[in-house]
C-alpha cells in the first residue's frame, strides 16, 4: 500500500501524467505499427524489408548462394536456445524500429559487435563439419578455435551481401517487386472476368 502510494502521482499531477502515459503508449503502438514490428516474430525474410532500409541486404541475399538455404534469421538471430532467439529478436527489433522511426539510420549500416558474434556462430553452426576436421580436432591443439575465431567474412567477403552496402546501393530498386509466384492467380483479371461472367459478353 505504501509502495503504491509512493509511485502514485500527487493529485495536481494526475492529469498531465495520464496524458503523458497515453502519449507514450500511443507512440509505442505507433512505432510498433509503422515499423511492422510484430512481423519481427516471423522468420520470413520479407519481414525484414518492411522498412526499406533493409532492402540492400534483402536483394543481395536474394541473389546469393544462401537464398535457398538460409534466411535472415538463420544468420542474424541466435540459435542456441529458444529464449535467446526471441529475446534477441525483440531487443534488435525494437532498437531498429526506434532508430528507423527517428530517422537516425546511417547510410552504411554496420553490424554491432554482438550481432557479428551471432552471425559468426551461425556460420559455424552450419559449416562446422566443413571448416573443421574431426580428426584434427581430436588432437591438434586449438584446431577448432583456429578455424572459427576469425570472422568468416574476412575472407568470404561476398557471403551473402556482397561488397557494397549502402541504403542506396541497389540502384533504383527501392523495393523488390512481389515475386510473380506469390500472386494468387496467373490469369489476368479481364480474362478471369470474361470466363467467369460469360453473361457480360
Amino acid at each position, binding site marked *: 500500500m505504501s509502495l503504491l502510494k509512493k509511485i502514485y502521482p500527487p493529485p495536481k499531477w494526475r492529469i498531465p501524467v495520464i496524458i503523458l502515459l497515453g502519449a507514450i503508449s500511443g507512440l509505442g503502438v505507433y512505432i510498433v505499427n509503422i515499423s511492422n514490428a510484430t512481423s519481427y516474430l516471423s522468420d520470413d525474410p520479407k519481414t525484414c524489408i518492411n522498412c526499406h532500409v533493409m532492402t540492400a541486404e534483402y536483394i543481395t541475399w536474394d541473389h546469393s548462394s544462401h537464398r535457398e538455404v538460409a534466411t535472415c534469421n538463420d544468420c542474424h538471430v541466435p540459435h542456441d536456445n529458444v529464449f535467446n532467439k526471441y529475446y534477441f529478436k525483440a531487443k534488435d527489433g525494437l532498437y531498429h524500429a526506434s532508430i528507423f522511426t527517428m530517422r537516425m539510420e546511417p547510410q*552504411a549500416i554496420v553490424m554491432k559487435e554482438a550481432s557479428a558474434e551471432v552471425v559468426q556462430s551461425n556460420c559455424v553452426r552450419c559449416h562446422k563439419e566443413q571448416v573443421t576436421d574431426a580428426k584434427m580436432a581430436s588432437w591438434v591443439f586449438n584446431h577448432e578455435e583456429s578455424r572459427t575465431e576469425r570472422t568468416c567474412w574476412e575472407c568470404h567477403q561476398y557471403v551473402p551481401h556482397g561488397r557494397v552496402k549502402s*541504403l*542506396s546501393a541497389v540502384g533504383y530498386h527501392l523495393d523488390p517487386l512481389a515475386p510473380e509466384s506469390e500472386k494468387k492467380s496467373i490469369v489476368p483479371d479481364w480474362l478471369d472476368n470474361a470466363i467467369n461472367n460469360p453473361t457480360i459478353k
Partner: protein
Amino acid sequence: MSRKAEASFAYQPTREIKQNEPRNQVWGENYPRQYQSFMQTADTTFKSMYLGSGLTDALEENPKLVVLWAGYGFSKDYNQPRGHYYAVEDIHNTLRTGGPTGPGTGPMPSTCWTCKSPDVPRMMNEIGIAEFYSGKWADKGEEINNAIGCADCHNPKTMALSISRPALIEAFESMGKNINEASHQEMRSLVCAQCHVEYYFNKKSPKEGVPYLTFPWKNGTSVEAMEEYYDELEFKDWTHKISKAPMLKTQHPGYELFQTGVHAKRGVSCADCHMPYKTEGGQKFTDHHIKSPLANPANSCQVCHRENQQDLMTDVYERQTKIKQNQAKLEEILVRLHVEAGKAWDLGASEEQMKDILMDIRHAQWRWDFSVASHGGQFHSPVEVSRIVSTAINIGQEGRIKLARLFADLGYNKPIDYPDIATKAKAQAYIGLDMEKLEAEKATFKKELLPKWMKAAEEREASWD
C-alpha cells in the same frame, strides 16, 4: 503515411527548365534537395590533413612554387581549390586574371571561363564555340556570373547526365572513341572530366589565332603520352624566366590519374566518393555537396569499406604523406635546376650546351606538376603518382649532373647557393614580381569594372522571366 509513400510523392517538376538555363536556383525549384546540397559547396569549414574547402594560399604554404613558375601567371597567385560555389568568385579574385579595365584588356583569354560556369554552354550555343574562345577574358565578363552548376552536367528535360563542354567530346574523338558510348557509370566520372583534366590552349588549330581549349590525349592519357604529344608539337606554355626552359604547365589531371588507380579499375566513379547517395525522409538522392570525401567517410568510403572511419582516413593520409615526402624533394631539385641553369646562362653557356638540360627541366617539371596538380592524385592512384615522381627525380637529377659538367666546362667550380625563398613574399621578390602593382590593378578592377559586370548580368537575367 509510410516512408515508401513519401518517396513516390517527391519528384513533381514545378517549373519548366529551358535548355542551357544557367541559374541554379531555377533548377532548384524542381530539385530542392540537390540544389540545397549543391549550395553547401559554399561551406569552407572542412579541413583534412592536406586539403579542405577553405581558402588556402598554395604559394604561401610552399614558396618553392613561385620559383618553379617564374614568368608564368601561377607565380602571382595560386590557391587550393574550394567548392564549386566559388568558381566565378575565385577567377575574379585571382591575380592571374590581372586587372582588366574593359573589353580587350588583361592578360588572359576568354577560354579561361570555360570551366567556371553554366553560362558557358549557354554562350557557346548563342555565339559558337570558336567565337566563345576568341578574345580576352574581360570581353565576356558581363556574360558569366553563375558558378558551376546544374547545366554543366545535366540535360534539363530528362535530368540525364550530359556533356556540355566540346573539349571532352573532341578529346574522345582524337583518341578514336565516341563519348556517346559511355556507360551510365562512366558518365558519373565523365561529367567531372569536362574540367578536372589537363588542358592547353591550341592557338593553331582548329582556328588560327584562337586559343582553343584542347585536351592533349591523342597519344593517350598517361604522363608520357601527353609529354610526347607536346614535344611533337614543340608546344610550350611559357619560357621560364630564370632557366629559359620551354615549360609546360600541367593543370589538374584528375580524371587521367584517377583512371590508372585501383578504384577506377573496379568501376568506382568520381560521384561514388565525391557525391555519395544520401537519404532524407525516405528519399534517396545524390549529395551535391561536392567536397573532400574525408568530410563524410560514412557515406563515401564506408559504403564499400567496413573499416572504421579513423582507419580509412589514415589510409589516405599515409599515402599522401609518403608521396609528398618525395614531391618535396623533387621541388627542391627543380628550384636548383632553374637557378643553376640561370647561372650557366650568366656564365656564357651556349644554346647548344643548354639544349638537353632545358629539355630535362621541361620534362622533370611537367612530371612533377602532373603528380601534384590534381590535388587528389596521391590517393586516387598512389602507385602511378609514385612512379611519375621517381621518373621526375631521375630526369631532374640527370639535368643537374649535366649542369655540373657544364660548369666544369665553363670553368666554374663552386656550389650554387640555394636562394632564400622562405616565404612567398621573398620568393616573389626573388623572381622580380611587382606584387604591389598587381594587387593595385586587381583592386581597381574589383572596384570599377566588376560591379558593372554584375549589374549587367543581373539585368540580363531579370529580362528572362
